[in-house]
């Protein structure tokens, strides 16, 4: 099964807490997962301040500067993984360095019905 691990954290604190992971550590973890063939994609994201939200209503596109919702914690990165079951996915999520300072939401991927 595929799972998307969404890493949420207060952006302002993500890099400044004693337990905050350095980029190198995050990169190393992604590489380990890649080596075992269990990661399909993994990226860190720029701040929500860099986000633009797009909506199309009645054929009209509107743009908003910023994320779709203002939240206390923001999406800071993601790992799209392949795991045997939820237990394996949770074990992978547990190892994500940012889990020490933020939260990792593990969401099963829904395969679209043809």
């Amino acid at each position, binding site marked *: *099964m595929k*799972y998307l691990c969404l890493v949420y954290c207060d952006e302002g604190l993500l890099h400044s807490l004693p337990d905050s992971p350095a980029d190198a550590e995050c990169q190393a973890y992604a590489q380990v997962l890649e080596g075992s063939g269990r990661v399909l994609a993994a990226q860190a994201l720029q701040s929500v301040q860099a986000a633009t939200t797009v909506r199309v209503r009645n054929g009209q596109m509107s743009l908003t500067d910023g994320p779709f919702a203002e939240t206390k914690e923001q999406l800071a990165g993601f790992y799209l993984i392949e*795991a*045997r*079951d*939820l*237990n394996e*996915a*949770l074990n992978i999520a547990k190892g994500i360095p940012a889990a020490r300072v933020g939260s990792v939401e*593990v969401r*099963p991927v*829904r395969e679209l019905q043809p």
Partner: protein
Amino acid sequence: MLGEQLREVVDELYRRDSRRILATLIRLLGDFDLAEEAMHEAFFIAVERWQRDGIPSNPRAWLVSTGRFKAIDLLRRHARFDHAQADLIMLVPSDDDPGDEALLGDDRLRLIFTCCHPALAADVQVPLTLREVCGLSTEQIANAFVQRPATIAQRIVRAKAKIRDAGIAYQVPEQAELAERLDSVLRVIYLVFNEGYSASSGEAVVRRELCDEAIRLGRLLLQLLPAPQVTGLLALMLLQASRQAARSDLDGNLVLLDQQDRRLWNHQQIAEGCQLAEQALRAGPAGIYSLQAAIAALHAEALRPEDTDWAQIIGLYDVLQRHWPSPVIELNRAAALARRDGPQAGLVLIEALLQRGELLDYHLAHAACAELHGQLGQTEQARAAWQRALILTQQGPERRYIEQRLGDLQGR
């Protein structure tokens, strides 16, 4: 065989084995609802088929394999026939003999671990376990928890959907995860027990059923997975349940430990509980349930309240507090200390606890204070503390008890 007799045999088989058969079908079919439906169909067919052909040599195996074939019929009938799923059902290795005791046991254990998976919220783990593992009806569960059946049904549906969609594996966790996952199972069983035992509301009869069900689950788990923590939990539940009959009088009023008629205690449960508690403690590092069981055993072994070995009880609370610090344990320890060293010694500790702002909303902390003030002849402080306790509890028997104690203080 006469129809009447056969029906009795099938009913008995259902009572004894339906949960085990269900657990196996869930493994084979990978779908809770399909398994439940297929099992009921299998029992239905059994009545008619066995009438004609006689009872098979292994009725359980017959029911499992009939259920499995029935599942394919059901998929077809529901017009959600999916070749992939049907193929999958037939592909599941059939070399395992469905009558195999060990394998059936494994299936039940799988089911317990799945229903108590920590990825499910506690408020769904409990009803799901009662429904799937114990076979209680949605109505029974709703009654016991004073919820509407629709609410309980909804939670169970939500849980099954999560198990399916999130890919929660139907398996006993590997050794590395077992300890942590077992904790979750034990917590669910103890929650079921406590809901029955310390009745925050609800009917007395249904509540006793919950206690019995929790003990039954504990026994089942111990049989499937003999680990000291499981032994400890079963011991604790048996020792607490042993006092059930003495805990309230004929009018449903609360009777505290000291005032209980100890002849009403269930001495069979006490004997078994004490033996299991000892066994659990001998088996290795003391667990949280084993230690509480040991405390309960010391109470149970005292023929009169004054025979209680308070020193040893305090020692056990010290160990508990060291490994699982909690203000409630501190409170209980203080109450035990008051028995050994006098009310003033206990009161100092409880007041310090309240001063820290902990347990301020816990009625039993104020009740303990009130009791000790009363023993010291400090009527005013006792009255104030009983009143605080009264505000904090909704439970009928407890309120009546506190009101009675307040009444006793009048005119003093």
